[in-house]
């Protein structure tokens, strides 16, 4: 199942690379995609049937806009902290409990947090995610986990679960 899913994805990518529908091109592309899928198919993530659920695509598009909005907000926040003469930063590492399951969802969450300016994901160990934060505003675990992860978690859960 995983091998076939990877093969189809790679075939689409090959068509995007070459952008022609010749017979020779298709045959060479099929052979290349087959070799690639045979070697890397065992590593491809499970749950390929998610490709067939249309509502996941809908939530992915919504998530894109939410993420962009958060990203812009965080950009202004970091720019304020850098340009302010007093340099009001208070860097620290916080440990947040994860509420999402599945490695794809966790990777998505970690990458979203890294892409947002001001926060960088360091590691995921068991059910906890370690985040370097430019301004640790509170020491209450409830509050900061809601502030960092809560804004993304509910959408990611809808995309990947």
């Amino acid at each position, binding site marked *: 199942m995983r091998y076939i899913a*990877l093969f189809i994805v790679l075939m689409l*990518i*090959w068509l995007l690379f070459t952008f022609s529908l010749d017979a020779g091109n298709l045959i060479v592309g099929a052979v290349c995609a087959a070799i*690639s899928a045979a070697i890397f*198919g065992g590593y491809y*993530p499970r749950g390929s049937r998610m490709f067939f659920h249309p509502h996941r695509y809908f939530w992915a598009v919504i998530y894109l806009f939410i993420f962009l909005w958060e990203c812009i907000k965080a950009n202004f926040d970091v720019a304020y902290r850098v340009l302010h003469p007093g340099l009001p930063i208070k860097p620290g590492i916080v440990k947040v409990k994860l509420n999402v399951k599945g490695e794809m969802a966790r*990777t998505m969450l970690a990458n979203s947090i890294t892409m947002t300016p001001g926060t960088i994901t360091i590691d*995921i160990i068991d059910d906890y995610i370690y985040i370097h934060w430019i301004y640790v505003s509170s020491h209450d675990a409830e509050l900061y986990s809601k502030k960092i992860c809560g804004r993304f978690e509910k959408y990611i859960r809808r995309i990947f679960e």
Partner: protein
Amino acid sequence: MTGMTNIVKTVTRIIGGVVFLFGLYIVTHGHLSPGGGFAGGTIIAGAFILLVLAYGDNIMHLRRIKEESSALENIAIFCILIMAAVGFLLGTKVFFNNFLPIGTAGQLISAGIIPLFNILIGIEVAAALFTIFLAFVIFKEEEK
């Protein structure tokens, strides 16, 4: 050697196959677009290096992979020599004779033996670079 964190592993799972396919695309379209055996071979080696760096492996398996990749390199360069000598044997006294039909420039199947050379050089370069990388990794593991 131990692998990296879960995030890197998951991204590698998604990206690895695509990087490998991109290397194959660069190799097979070497006579039409920028690229060729050297560039594509290094990209393919990069895909495998990414896999080893992200996942890690036990040393016995790494040693076996090194033997295989080294053998693959030898086979590729042997094939290059045979392909070069075939032109010599066919009657025209030229080493590296382009004995296959040339076809029209711009098609995927054209240019005689140049695509075949591209593929063989790609295999050779990829296997050589991967062997070099594995030699360093195995040296580090053996020292412990």
